[in-house]
């Protein structure tokens, strides 16, 4: 269960959302740039604190201003895939994926086997000891995803995970991510401005505008024409 009910004053508007998503579903936050979508991810991860409200993921309360509870970032157990991946540039593919496990003081042998187990199916074994500066965009995306999943997070946060990829790779990566999410059986929040991402991956979709949810529901509900200009624009683009 994802339960996000927060308010936070931002520079241009007040972020004010109340979102609930059932167990192990993928929530997609959809909208134009600057709508406050990434702020929600940062609030869940603990990189920002809300002015008021609460965030609960499963049985864990990450933050609750009424109860004056706030779990520090490093103890929340979130897996965050940043927009440009934020792979540590001074580390190899292996070191990047292993980083979270090292921070949990997992024994070296266990880390090695876990990293190989994760990287094998995604074809990263041959670039395992390459510095991340020398791998392709698609491989970077996979490393970022595995780095986040390696720590067995309570929730996976994905910020525009396909925006740095070319259109062909995007389609392939959407399918790959869908399979991974189904396999991982953890709730996830995906931020995107691309309706195709929302259709491919979202169980629940929230369309955001200036810090508020203006439309929400499953894919079918969202896709009805005439509900919001953002969705209609997508249809007109499809026709042309």
């Amino acid at each position, binding site marked *: 269960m994802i339960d996000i009910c927060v308010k936070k004053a931002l520079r241009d508007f007040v972020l004010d959302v109340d979102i609930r998503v059932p167990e192990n579903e993928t929530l997609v936050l959809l909208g134009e740039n600057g709508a406050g979508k990434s702020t929600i991810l940062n609030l869940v991860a*603990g*990189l920002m604190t809300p002015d008021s409200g609460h965030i609960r993921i499963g049985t864990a309360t990450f933050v609750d201003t009424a109860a004056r509870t706030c779990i520090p970032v490093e103890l929340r157990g979130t897996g965050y895939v940043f927009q440009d991946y*934020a792979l540590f*540039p*001074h580390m190899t593919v292996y070191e990047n994926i292993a980083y979270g496990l090292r921070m949990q003081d997992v024994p070296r042998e266990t880390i090695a086997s876990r990293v190989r187990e994760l990287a094998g199916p995604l074809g990263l074994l041959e670039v395992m000891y390459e510095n991340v500066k020398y791998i392709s965009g698609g491989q970077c995306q996979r490393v970022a995803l595995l780095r986040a999943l390696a*720590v067995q997070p309570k929730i996976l946060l994905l910020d525009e995970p396909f925006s740095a990829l070319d259109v062909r790779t995007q389609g392939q990566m959407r399918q790959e991510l869908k399979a991974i999410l189904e396999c991982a059986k953890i709730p996830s929040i995906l931020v995107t401005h691309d309706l195709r991402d929302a259709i491919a991956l979202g169980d629940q979709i929230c369309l955001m505008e200036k810090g508020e949810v203006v439309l929400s529901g499953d894919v079918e509900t969202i896709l009805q024409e005439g509900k919001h200009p953002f969705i209609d624009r997508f249809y007109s683009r499809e026709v042309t």
Partner: protein
Amino acid sequence: MTQTMDRICRRGNLPLRILIATLVGLAVLFIGIPLAALLLRVPPALLLASLQDPVVLDALSLSLVTAGISTIIVIGFGTPIAYINARCQYPGKKIIDTITDLPVVLPPAVAGLALLMAFGHRGLVGQYLDLLGIEIAFTTIAVIMAQVFVASPFYIRQARTSFAGVSRVYEHAARTLGAGPLRTFFSITVPLAITGILSGAVMTFARALGEFGATIMFAGNLQGKTQTMPLAIYGALQGDMDASLALAVILVVISFAVIIVIKTLTEKEEADT
């Protein structure tokens, strides 16, 4: 055709090119001639012989030890200041920034006098230390304090710039992966800023090694105790010119080494990015 035009254009610029080449040549000669004069006066045999001279040996070892300790102290207190000033906004940040930068522009003699007024026998703090039987002025500790005072900005400024150049998103990623603030700092921020940190440390070491004004005011000129290389050069100038020249050549060699280290580090960083 293009090549011909290039040549015509270049010919048009000829006077300007001659002027620039002359200015560059003059600048190189201005720095090069004194260095060459120094090196020509010290044949290798004289340099080796001077290394047996107790004045030279004492000054060399004292300088290396004190500059080394000063650099470690500066890294110790300068790193948190540099990081906080690169990352955080807090009241009084500008004042802290100004105070930590001040020794760069402050004449070393003024720094020495200020240290003497603070930690000297009857100084602001020194009078109380005196009551406890602690004497600082005119001891090796005073040498280190003078070096730390004048050399610290070289490290703090460089480290601050390097920390500011590390994108916060890497630190954020590390935090979400379970690293606390300290582990994030040592496993992500420091490795990503290491080139600047090392350059700053090398510059600090070089500045500490060359410190003269503040040291002579605050620590005096006692062989084996407070007489560092620059002080020994000055002291020996009146008597043993050979010792003075040998020490000067050693400092020139160290200065060259410092510049080469910094250039190598900078080039490595540029190649990495």
